[in-house]
């Protein structure tokens, strides 16, 4: 902070630039691999850093590193924009999965059917492979919280599924097909029963249970997976 008080002393400016150069280099690397030479990116990022030093106002209470990061990223984005690149900010798998999940929910409602991978990719502005990877991760690893509120109502998914259970009699014939069904939680057993024994569509089940089609699709996948694991243990 002392250095900032000495601005516009050129030696203070140089000292700050040297100290924060690694930050500029870090962002230059993060934006590399998009067809621009790393040297150019480092230069652009350094320019962003110098701008940040000149414009930083210590009175505002924002740490310099935060301010510098934002300015450097802004400069790099402008660099790509000036060259006509459609810049995609790097995202990790988890962020992508969250984005895809949100996009699918919205699109499924808007379209009245499940979107295609291409449609999701265009809407979320990410690659088709990223969408596939995210969908895989979502099906395999997330268990939708059954305590999450359904739609705008205050009932939870667990409650709405329970209301169907009252009129639901599991046939012994059906259980004999896959004994491990007995070990599944009742709501998952109900969904599998409706889907495969009564031959209901996902849409019908979603309507009946008051949950989204995406949720039904995911619960079907997860319960089949669980069933297979249970069967292996027998």
């Amino acid at each position: 902070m002392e250095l900032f008080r000495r601005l516009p002393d050129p030696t203070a400016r140089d000292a700050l630039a040297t100290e924060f150069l690694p930050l500029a280099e870090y962002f230059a690397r993060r934006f590399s691999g998009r067809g621009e030479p790393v040297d150019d990116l480092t230069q652009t990022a350094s320019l962003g850093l110098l701008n940040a030093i000149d414009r930083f106002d210590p009175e505002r209470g924002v740490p310099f590193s935060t301010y510098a990061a934002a300015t450097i990223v802004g400069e790099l984005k402008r660099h790509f924009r000036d060259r006509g690149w459609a810049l995609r900010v790097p995202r990790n798998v988890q962020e992508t999965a969250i984005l895809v999940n949100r996009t699918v929910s919205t699109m499924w409602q808007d379209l009245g059917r499940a979107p295609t991978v291409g449609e999701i990719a265009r809407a979320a502005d990410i690659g088709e492979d990223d969408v596939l990877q995210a969908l895989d991760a979502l099906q395999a690893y997330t268990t939708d919280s059954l305590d999450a509120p359904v739609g705008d109502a205050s009932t939870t998914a667990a409650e709405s599924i329970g209301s169907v259970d009252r009129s639901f009699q599991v046939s012994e014939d059906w259980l004999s097909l896959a004994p491990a069904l007995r070990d599944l939680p009742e709501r998952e057993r109900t969904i599998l029963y409706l889907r495969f024994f009564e031959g209901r569509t996902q849409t019908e089940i979603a309507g009946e249970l008051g949950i989204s089609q995406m949720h039904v699709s995911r619960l079907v996948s997860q319960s089949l997976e669980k069933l297979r694991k249970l069967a292996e243990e027998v």
Partner: protein
Amino acid sequence: MTNLPTAVSVDVPATAVFVQVLRNVVAGIAARLDLPIDQIEDIRLAVTEAASLLLEEGDATSLHMSVGRDGDTMEVTLTSDGRSDPWPTDRVTASWPWLVMQGLTDEVRADRAEGAGPSIGFTKGRERVDR
């Protein structure tokens, strides 16, 4: 829809770990054929169930999967190098995985070509949705 001029096929070792590879391959192809994601998931699950039935036979060392397309319909066939004969048995067609495949796809069949191992195939057409 992306053009799929000839069937895509892949051979993997007959183990549960490689069933995941088959699932990913079929999902990747279905995505390129512009199928909606719920139908992609149905196909992926059906492949898993078909593979589990073939693996249950126990004597298979490799699994072959071929994926083709006829108009708007996707055709997937899994064949093992096992020796099960006769095929399919009643136990197979009365099983849970078979029921699940019937629920997920349009048509399921099991047969055994001359000189080949037991196979399970299914078709899945793009479901039309009125908008």
